[in-house]
């Protein structure tokens, strides 16, 4: 089960993902990102510090937005991934496609740089 908390500050939408993302809960993640995009945010941060597990379906959700973000000029940065989750991202080759930082400060800086 997953819980997603959204927090908006300085034009940045931060999505804190808490729990596990599997095939069924990935829909929730998809909805949250879609909502953020729909509200017109150009800077999105994904806080993965409380994300314990992510399945291939969950990874697919992040992946599915790559093209859309590029087209709309939206930048998304993820941070705080634990080792296992980070490994999952890197195995899939998503680490090269997504922006991943270790801390929130770094992520904030990166997202601001990217959207300039």
């Amino acid at each position, binding site marked *: 089960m997953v819980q997603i908390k959204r927090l908006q500050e300085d034009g940045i939408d931060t999505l804190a993902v808490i729990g596990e993302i599997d*095939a069924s809960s*990935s829909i929730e993640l*998809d909805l949250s990102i879609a909502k953020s995009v729909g509200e017109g945010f150009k800077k999105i941060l994904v806080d993965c510090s409380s994300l314990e597990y992510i399945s*291939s*379906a969950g*990874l*697919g*959700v992040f*992946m*599915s937005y*790559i*093209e859309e973000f590029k087209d709309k000029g939206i930048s998304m940065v993820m941070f705080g991934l634990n080792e*296992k989750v980070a490994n999952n991202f890197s*195995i*899939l*080759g*998503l680490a*090269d*496609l997504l922006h991943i930082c270790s801390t929130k400060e770094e992520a904030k800086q990166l997202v601001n740089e990217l959207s300039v």
Partner: protein
Amino acid sequence: MAYFLSIHPHLRARALIRITFLGAFIAWLVLIFSDVTILFSDIRGLHPDIPVWLPRLMFDLYVLCLFYYYKFKIEKEESLNFTDLLWRVFATGLVATVVSLGLRLILFLLGDTALATNILFTDVIYHINLALFLSFLMAAFTSWKRLILYQKSKWLIRVWTVFEFTLLFALLYDSLNSGTNGTLSTIIAIMLGGLGLVLSANMKWVAYLNFKQKWTSLLLLVLAFFYLGYFFYTTTRLADFIGIQSTSFLDFREHTFSLSIFGFVMVYSLFSFLVILFNLPTSSVFEQKLEEVVNFQRISQSIQTEQSEESVYNILLESSVSSVFADAAWLEIKSVSQEDRLFTYGISEPETKAIQDHIINNKIKGALDQGIDKTKNLSKHLGSLKGARFRSLLSFPIVVKGESIGTLAILKELPDGFNKEMTRVVSTFANQAGISIENFRLLEEAFQNERYKEELKIAKTVQKSLLPENLESNGDFDIAAFSQSADEVGGDYYDTIRINDHKVALIIADVSGKGTTAAFHMSQMKGIFHSLAQQELDPREFMVRANKALVFCLERGSFISAIYFVLDSENGEITYCRAGHCPVLYYTSATDTSAYLQDKGAALGMVKNMTYCNMIDVYKIKYQKGDVMVLYTDGITEAKDSKGVEFGYENLEQTILEVKDKGAREIQEHLISKLFDYSGTDDINDDFTTMIVRFK
């Protein structure tokens, strides 16, 4: 007796009926003979050769035999209904009366001859009549017993038992003391009278007769009265005639028993007659209630017997109309997917439409729309519709799963044709119909699910056939593979194909997600593998083309991770390209070390544009004898134990090292059994696949 008990109960009952009948007949013969002898001796002033108590004893025996005869014949016969019982009594009476009338005819023909006036001859005639009379009384007694004890209570059974034993006591007491003058006889008579009256108040069976049966019963009872009167008159006359000349004969009038049983049969017949008569006007109400129950059952059972919802609707229409004596009804079923359906009874569709339109045009709020949840009496609105024959209208919603799916409307030509009771009955019907329809739909769903299951089973066998039965091998290596799906069908794929005499292509792939969708993509992957691998493509080129093909097939968010290998035995080289799949575990025998191959590569179907070729790389390894290459899907590393801890990469590596010197098949079997041990079940909640390549 033991023999009797062992034979079939039906045959036993028949044998008992015959025995009791024979017993009664013999007792009666002895009775006549002894009574005539005593009477003869008395007239001649002689002392009789036989004891004077013999006729009385035989009379008791006769009555007891009759009692048991009718007990087996009437009381135990379960197939008899109420009118059948009355009919039995009537038939017995008819036979007895016909025989008696026959005797009268003979007497009439004999005229005033010496024989006709002979006291002994009269005694014989008297005894025949008395026997017939008693036989009729006992038949009636047994039938009445069944009627009285219908829907019995413990208390009623007790009263009846007391009544029967008192009668038996009276019978025995009579045969010990001739004459009804004793105080005890009076007490017995009063007691029997009281008990008889109490028992006669039990008339529950009358309520269950329908109108026709009530008339039949009345007729049968009238005839029974006639028989009773006739026999009482005949036997009394004959007894009087004999009594003038001698008192030494068996006079039934001195018997408390005979008189009591006659009185009881008479009283109960009279009570029954009156109760039935006064119940006649209300019998239609009972019948209506009964019909409601039957109709109700029909609706409930229609779900099991009927083939379609339509039948349920039609039964609902008929039942509602017949239960409230309506003239017409219609049923409108709204549905999202189909057109609205209209079922009518006793009314044409145009007429229905006219009434519906009238109600809609008059903007009668909530009248026939689907939103209503209450029964509505709309009769007053019909008055304003010209040319309509109906003057009363009731509408009911039909609710399935808390949602109104239609309206039931009941019409009558009479104004104010529906009372509260009728409204309640029909709304109950509508509710029941809702339940039936809901059940019906659930049943349909269950059937549908069953069919899907069957189809999934077929899909499973089809998918099984997509995985190769035999894997390629040559002198350099052996391959063993194992795959299992969490659902009926899964998204894991592995395969081998021989490119030429020294090159073999290998693939392992995992479609994101599980189940049917994954299975479809897996079959696409197989198609891609088989068409591209044969073209002797460089692994990078293979991946680029596969990605290009898959990007447009996979839906948003789906991808396939894969590793494609080309094993070249000519120069002992593995060329591979990893597309987001779990890293290969490679054991090098020369250094006795194992490691996960670190390389880069993005999964297939994620990137649409041409940049994909930059996201993957081709790697080469020289293999040597004794090396082991372990390919797997994430179902293996992510398999959890009871505490939720994953199997992980280290466990996998350790497990392989334990059997590094064994053949491919043994390594694979060891890994899978380890995995099952670890998870504590062989039902792992993910698709998992492993492929072991062992070089030799």
